[in-house]
């Protein structure tokens, strides 16, 4: 899960609505809803409409800052003080599922008139399915694709964005040789694992094998992605810097220091804000290039989950349904720029006519979930640390792949034991 950088609030905003608990009419049910990051601000605007439609329910939104959300959810579980419903990044979903903290939602969806599985992007839906059961309903989606400079590509003789890695490589080389070797072609911050992960997910070979028991980074598919990634730095088409050092990529992209930027939906808004109005036609978005033709990218985003401990699951589900309605999802997009996970939500409103969002709509049909194991964030972090060493030329591709596997297998040691242990003790 990723949120726009710069939107980190680090003071936990206490439940704003605490005061309203005081004089509650009889028969009104309280639903506690935790949100992460900016989504809480949008909820404050959406809740009144929900409460008007459901006079018997009162929603208490509590905003968690992204940096504190993970520990707060865990501490709440350990202390048995969970809310009824929460927003949950889909890389955190496997953890909550492993804790047996959240409620399977298959029965709710089966009878729902609003939540229609067929309307959702299949891979986004799949990130919420573990062991054949549904644990959350996708709320908004996040994927990585290419932001590119139309004018620069035209200048070096290309009419459109790349569709294959080979084509992309040629464009990168052409852009790189443009400014007497001063500028770069693409920004791939070396401390973000999403760019490499997105490329690696295009492979047919999974990143983990044997049901998430071992790493599979020595596969040809991953090595091919890692080679492409590392070569981009070796050819000086991407600078070997982190996003801390990159500072302000928007202005630099506007100035043409980079012609490509691999990033997520929130940057549409950032680029609109930060690039001059007269230059707005100079940039666009494109689906991620693949090995042979348009490729896949990662299936990120957040879901809504209901906790097992909740005493108001039905009421919480009504809130899930409300937030899953296409008209509400469009409103949500207008408030925050969070992209909806349902196809029908894309068919109206500002999204339908936004040319910069079109590539995302296209990409969302081709997204792949990251492995659904609780350890995934730690594994991806280690993957990126080793990849950064390969970028710096400290180790070869083969050694890097082997090293990532070694670290992954160590992280997954407990998972293997738990899985095997559970099988031994199964009745």
């Amino acid at each position, binding site marked *: 899960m990723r949120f726009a950088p710069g939107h980190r609030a*680090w003071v936990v905003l206490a439940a704003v609505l605490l005061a309203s608990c005081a004089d509650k009419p009889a028969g009104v049910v309280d639903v506690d809803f935790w949100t992460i990051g900016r989504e809480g601000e949008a909820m404050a605007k959406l809740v009144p409409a929900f409460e008007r439609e459901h006079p018997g329910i009162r929603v208490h939104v509590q905003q968690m800052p992204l940096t504190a959300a993970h520990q707060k959810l865990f501490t709440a579980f*350990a202390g048995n003080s969970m809310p009824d419903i929460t927003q949950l990044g889909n890389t955190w979903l496997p953890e909550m599922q492993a804790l047996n903290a959240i409620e399977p939602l298959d029965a709710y969806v089966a009878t729902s008139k609003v939540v229609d599985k067929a309307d959702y992007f299949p891979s986004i839906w799949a990130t919420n399915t573990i062991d054949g059961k549904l644990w959350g309903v996708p709320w908004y989606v996040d994927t990585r694709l290419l932001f590119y400079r139309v004018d620069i590509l035209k200048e070096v003789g290309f009419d459109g964005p790349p569709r294959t890695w080979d084509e992309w490589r040629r464009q990168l080389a052409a852009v790189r040789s443009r400014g007497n070797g001063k500028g770069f072609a693409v920004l791939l911050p070396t401390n973000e694992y999403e760019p490499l992960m997105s490329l690696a997910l295009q492979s047919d070979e999974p990143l983990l094998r044997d049901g998430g028991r071992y790493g599979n980074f020595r596969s040809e598919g991953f090595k091919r992605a890692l080679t492409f990634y590392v070569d981009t730095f070796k050819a000086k088409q991407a600078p070997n810097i*982190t996003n*801390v050092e990159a500072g302000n990529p928007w202005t630099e992209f506007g100035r043409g220091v980079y012609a490509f930027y691999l990033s997520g939906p929130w940057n549409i808004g950032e680029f609109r804000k930060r690039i001059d109005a007269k230059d707005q036609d100079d940039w666009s978005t494109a689906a991620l290039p693949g090995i042979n033709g348009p490729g896949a990218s990662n299936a990120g985003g957040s879901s809504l989950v209901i906790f097992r401990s909740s005493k108001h699951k039905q009421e919480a589900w009504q809130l899930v349904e409300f937030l899953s309605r296409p008209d509400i999802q469009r409103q949500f997009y207008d408030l925050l720029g969070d992209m909806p996970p349902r196809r029908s939500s894309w068919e109206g409103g500002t999204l339908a006519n936004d040319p910069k969002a079109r590539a995302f709509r296209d990409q969302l049909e081709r997204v792949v979930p990251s492995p659904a194991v609780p350890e995934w964030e*730690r594994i991806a972090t280690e993957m990126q640390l080793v990849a950064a060493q390969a970028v710096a030329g400290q180790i070869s591709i083969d050694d890097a792949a082997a090293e990532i596997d070694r670290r992954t297998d160590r992280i997954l040691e*407990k998972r293997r034991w*738990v899985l095997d242990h559970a099988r031994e003790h199964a009745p």
Partner: protein
Amino acid sequence: MSRQNAAWWFLAPALIVLGLFFLLPVIAALLLSLTDYDLYALADLRNLRFVALANYWELLHRPLFWSALGHTFYFVIVGVPLSIATSLGAALLLNSPLARFKPFFRTALFAPVVTTVVAVAVIWRYLFNTKYGWANYGLSGLGIDPVDWLGDPHWAMPTIILFAVWKNFGYNMIIFLAGLQAIPADLYEAARIDGASAPSQFRHITLPMLAPTLLMVSILTVSGYFQLFAEPYVMTEGGPLQSTTSVLYLMYEEGFKWWNLGSASAVAFLLFVIMFVVTAGMLRLSRRKVAS
């Protein structure tokens, strides 16, 4: 009832409180550090395994632990002398017969100690903002380019040190002030009659007379500074590029972010051992000095 028994009765309340709220948790944490308590164990206690010293062994092989230890030592080695020098300097100024409005300055300089770290961190983050901060505004007046105080991996730790020194020097200042006031005035008088200059008075009277206070203050400050946590937590979240991740911050992330309580406890005990060795070394060093 014998005298011995009576003594135990008098001690009992203190011992019970200490045992219940200090000794017991410490023993529990020690036991925890020998297990692999994690997410799976939180879900189901049957997933808990005894791993002996594996947590410690693994930590010693983790680059992040060593870099966190490096950052902590950086903070202690630069921060403690700076903090003590500032405290001593402020105490000397306040103790000077020339100083006016002493109660006011004493209170003003002590104020940072009693403010909450989170509240003042907000103000410091503004002060050290790259674009709008006063720190860079001042530098630009001197013709120096703006510094990304909290965003640059090289500058983040110095900024944290500055913040911590400002936040904490008042406490030691009060202790030093008490120590300075306990030095008999006739010693200075005698030195003045012998024609000793102010610096040599400071060297040969103030410092030796303050030595016990200095030792106590150093040990307290060192052990306090080793436990660096709140400052990076509220100012930088351990970043940028983990350049302000201290050992205690690592423990917090391990324990409460990833819920690996086993290895988090191991971090805590490793830090305890390091602090114990360092303060014991300081004590021994000072004793040898006194003996010679």
